[in-house]
């Protein structure tokens, strides 16, 4: 069921301790900052978070990690120049890390949404990230068995939603949004604009409303340039 909610706090209120939460975004583009702030406020803990990175600077996911709400990160690129909160927790042994090549991360999320039980991929074969995993040679290439990543909740950002929950995104802020929306049991979206049903061209819808559960309008969140400034 689709709900339009008034505030980001209302939108995330149902997130329980111990949930697996996917968070969209690559760098700042597509990061649902306001939803992450609300998640911090709502107090859910023992979270497993799926995001490409592990937080940057003193905002968003980095604060969630700093406050000890994140039990485990599933990501491809945790170490950045300004990932100090993750770095500190990791070195203190206070956060678990599942490091996943970015393409495997994307494909595993996609697999969850598409009902795939697992797949073989050449990415990672022969590397330490395939250690302990099933492998086989297919058409002469070594391949690794990878499993879907499901989530209880996805927090994503889109540009625009219509009354049916159909979404369009903006430029490279699209990134993980569409596949996370499909992989999570409950998808919460912050958008810059809500248009009437019929206001999006059916040919151009990127995420059909079937994947969307809660929508909240956040003024000015269409372009992360403003946010990052």
């Amino acid at each position, binding site marked *: 069921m689709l709900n339009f909610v008034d505030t980001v706090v209302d939108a995330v209120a149902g997130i329980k301790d111990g949930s697996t939460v996917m968070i969209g975004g*690559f*760098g*700042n*583009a*597509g990061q649902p900052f306001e939803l992450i702030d609300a998640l911090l406020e709502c107090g859910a803990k023992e979270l497993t978070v799926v995001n490409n990175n592990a937080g940057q600077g003193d905002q968003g996911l980095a604060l969630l990690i700093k406050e000890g709400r994140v039990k485990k990160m599933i990501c*491809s*690129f*945790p*170490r*950045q120049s300004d990932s100090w909160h*993750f*770095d500190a927790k*990791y*070195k203190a042994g206070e956060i678990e*890390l599942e*490091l*996943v*090549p*970015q*393409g*495997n991360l*994307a*494909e595993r*999320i*996609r697999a969850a949404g598409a009902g795939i039980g697992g797949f073989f*991929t*050449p*990415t*990672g*074969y*022969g*590397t*330490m*990230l395939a250690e302990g995993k099933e492998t086989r040679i297919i058409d002469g290439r*070594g391949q690794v068995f990878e499993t879907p990543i499901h989530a209880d909740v996805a927090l994503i950002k889109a540009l625009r939603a219509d009354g049916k929950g159909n979404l369009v*995104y*903006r*430029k*490279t*802020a*699209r*990134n*993980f*949004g*569409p*596949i996370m929306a499909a992989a999570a049991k409950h998808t919460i979206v912050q958008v810059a604009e809500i248009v009437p049903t019929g206001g999006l061209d059916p040919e151009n819808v*990127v995420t059909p409303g079937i994947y969307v559960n809660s929508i909240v309008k956040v003024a000015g969140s*269409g*372009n*992360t*340039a*403003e*946010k*990052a*400034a």
Partner: protein
Amino acid sequence: MSLTETSIQTSDAPMGRDDLARLVARDIAPGSFVNLGIGQPTLVSNYLTEEQNVTLHTENGMLGMGPAAEDDEIDGDLINAGKIPVTELPGASYFHHADSFAIMRGGHLDICVLGAFQVSATGDLANWHTGAPGAIPAVGGAMDLATGAKDVFVMMTLLTRDGASKIVESCTYPLTGVGCVTRVYTDKAVFLTGPDGVTVRETFGTTLEELQELVPVPLKAAPAAGRRDPGAP
């Protein structure tokens, strides 16, 4: 082929980073789809010509990426894999992350250009993790690029700061991909790597004999001839 058959191209001086980027750019076939890794490989984009009609892919969901954005072009929703604001060229397209990596993993990119810590004689690549105790690993899209692109070019200095060769018999750093690198562009020479070992295509300010003293794997000379002027456009 023995070391005495040095029918390879040479130039008089080592290549600087920009000269090397120009050389890589010139080696990219017209109409290619290319992904340039973070760091030194990004320099290649400065030397691609309009006539080459090369389309750049960025792993975070775009084909047709243009140069870095400046001033009022800067848009936080339009960044490259290094999170630098970039621009959009006519004919660009956007797609989600699984579709973007399907382009890489499905073998559709003609070339990716990556930096490296080490490359083995048979083209194994190590470029993501030093393996040092306590180091926080971060892999990003490196393994997908290394495994998926039709050709993987590496750009690096031949030697570490300590003077050790980065072309090695077998990588001591954790691998990114197995047997994936096809060419290595360094300040001292261009190497072709593959199942048959290492071939030197051209040298810059050095001889094949001198190179062989630096590099701990057998080097063969390429059959090609001619001279490369590093300063030529």
